[in-house]
C-alpha cells in the first residue's frame, strides 16, 4: 500500500479531531466560566492600603555590605600595555587638592562705623608674614 494515502488519511482524521477537540474544549471552558461568574459591584475611587517596609533604624549596612563586589565588571579586565601618557592621566585622576587654611584677621569697628583690620600691613620674611611693628622693633640693620 502506498504511503501518501495512509498519511493523508491520518492527517485528515487528526485535523478533523483537532477541530472537534478545540470547539468542544472551548464550549466546555465557557460553561465552566459561566458557573463562576462574579457579581459586579461598584468600586470606590480610592482604597485604603497598607505599606509594609523594614525598619531603617534596625538596619546595619556594615554587617552585610560587600563593596568589593559591587558593580562587578561585566567585561573582562582590559590591561593597558602602553606607558607614559596613560599612567600620567591615571596619576592625575587620584590627585587630591590639599586643604588650605587662611587665618582670619582681627577686625575693629571705628567710631565712624568703618570696619578696619588690625593687621592691615604684613611683611613677608623667611619666617612667614609678620606685622610691620614687630619688624621695626627687631633693630636689625636694613639695607636700602
Amino acid at each position, binding site marked *: 500500500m502506498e504511503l*501518501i*494515502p495512509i*498519511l*493523508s*488519511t491520518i*492527517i*485528515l482524521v*487528526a*485535523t*478533523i479531531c*483537532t*477541530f472537534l*477537540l*478545540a*470547539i468542544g*474544549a*472551548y464550549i*466546555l*471552558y465557557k460553561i*465552566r*466560566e459561566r458557573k463562576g*461568574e*462574579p457579581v459586579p459591584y461598584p*468600586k*470606590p*475611587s*480610592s*482604597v*485604603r*492600603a*497598607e*505599606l*509594609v*517596609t*523594614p*525598619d531603617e533604624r*534596625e*538596619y546595619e*549596612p556594615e554587617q*552585610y*555590605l*560587600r563593596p568589593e*563586589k*559591587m*558593580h*562587578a*565588571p*561585566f*567585561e573582562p579586565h582590559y590591561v593597558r600595555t602602553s606607558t607614559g601618557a596613560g599612567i600620567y592621566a591615571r596619576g592625575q585622576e587620584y590627585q587630591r587638592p590639599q586643604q588650605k587654611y587662611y587665618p582670619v584677621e582681627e577686625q575693629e569697628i571705628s567710631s565712624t562705623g568703618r570696619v578696619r583690620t588690625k593687621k592691615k600691613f604684613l611683611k613677608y620674611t623667611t619666617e612667614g608674614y609678620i606685622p610691620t611693628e614687630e619688624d621695626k622693633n627687631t633693630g636689625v640693620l636694613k639695607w636700602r
Partner: protein
Amino acid sequence: MKNQKLNRTPIIVENNGTVHSSGDLKKKYFRRILISGAASIILVLIIVFSLPRTILSVSSLVEYATIVALVIFLFVLLLRYFGILSFAYLYLNEYTFKSSKNYFPFVSIIVPVYNESKVIRASVESLLKLDYSNYEIIIVNDGSTDDTKEVAETLVGYNKGLLTDIKISLINQPNGGKSRALNSGIKHSQADIILCMDGDSQLSPESVKLAVRHFENPKIGAVAGNVKVLNRKKFLTDLQALEYIEGLNMARSAQSYIRLVNIIPGPIGLFRKKAIADAGYYSNDTFAEDADLTLKILANGWKIYYEPASVSYTEAPAKLQQLLKQRYRWTRGIIQSISKHKRLMINPAINFGDTFILWTMFYEALIWPAMNIAANLFFIIAAIAFGFSYLIFFWWAGLALLDLITALYCIAVEKEEFRLILYAIIYRMFFILVIDICKVMSTIEEFLGIKMTWGKLERVGTIKA
C-alpha cells in the same frame, strides 16, 4: 531571611478606571451588529446581482474564491515567515553583549501577586540572585484570599542579595486587578527605571544588568525581556515552549530591529518611569494591560527594544482548559487595545510606526487565525466531498517543513533544547489550529460584547528557586 522589625504605614491608593455603563455598552454593540449585518446583506446582494453578468456560476465562484484565498494565504504565510526571519537576523547581527561600566541606575522591581503563595518565595529568591546591586523589590499583594500576605510579610526587610543587601517592601491592598497593583507599586517607587514582572515568574541573574544598559539611550522608553517556559517535559507545555521561541521571541527580535516592539510581556518588562507616567500608567479598561501600555508608550514617540538575554521563566498552563482561558484573555485584550487605539490605526500621519504595529497586531489577532481555519476546512471538504485527500498531506508536509526550518533556526539562535524541534511536525496542524479556533471564538465574543472575567490561572507551584 532573618526576622526584622517592620513598619506598617496606612496609605491610600487610586482605584480609578474606565467603567462603561451597561446601557452605553448595549447601544454600542447593538449598533455594531446592525452595521455589520447591513454590510453583509449589501455584499450578498452585490454578488447575487453581479454574478449572472459574469462567466462564473455559484459553485465555480466558491472554488475560484477558495483557490484565490489559498494562494493569498500561502503568499502571506511565506512573506510573514521570511520577513520576520530576515528582520530577526538583522537584529541579531547588530545585537551586542557590551555592557555599560558607569550606568547603574536605581531599579524598582514590582511584583504583583494574587493568590501566589506557592510561588512567591521562589520568585523573590530568584530576584535576590540578580547580578546587579542598585535595586529594590516591591511586592504588591492585590487582595489575595489565600496566605500570600503572610508569606510575603516574611520576605519584607533587608535581605542578602548576590552583591549587596536588597530592600523588600510590601503593599497590601484590596483586590483591584493587575493593572492597579502595578500602578500602586510604580507610584510608590522612587526609581527612574521600573521592572514589572509576574508573581509566578523567575528572572535570570543577568536579566536586569543587560536590559538596563539600553536606557542609556534617552530615546528608549522600555525594554522587553525574553519569556521562556519553565515547566516543560509535558506535551502541552513543550508546544508552548516552542511557540514562545519560534512564534513570540523571533517576532519580537524582528520588531526590535525597528525599535517597535508591540507587546512588552507581563513576565518581564523594564520601563523608564517617565515613559509610564507620560502614557498615564497601566489602564484597567482592557484585558491586555501590557499591550495597551506598550501601544501608549509607542504613541508618545518612545522607542522600545528587545533584550533576548533578559530571561524570565514562567509557568505555562499545563491543561487545555487553562491554555484556552489564557489565550481567550490575550485575544480579547489585544482586540480591546487595538480598538482603543483605532485613531492611530486609521491615520498614519499621527505616528506611522504605531499604525504599522497596530495593523500587524490586527492581522495576527484576527485575519491570520481566520485564514488558517479556512484553509484547513477547505482541505477537509476537498478530501471528504471530492476525494482529494492527498492535498491535505502536501499542505501539511509544506507547512511542517517550513516550521521545522524556522524552529531549527530559532532554537539554534536561542541555544534552546533541540528536542523541541520534533514538535514542529505537529505544531501548526494541532497546536496552532486549536489556538486559532480559540482566537476566532474570542473575536466573535468580543464583537458581540459578551462579558468576560480576568480568569486567574491556577498555579501548581512547579517553580522552585
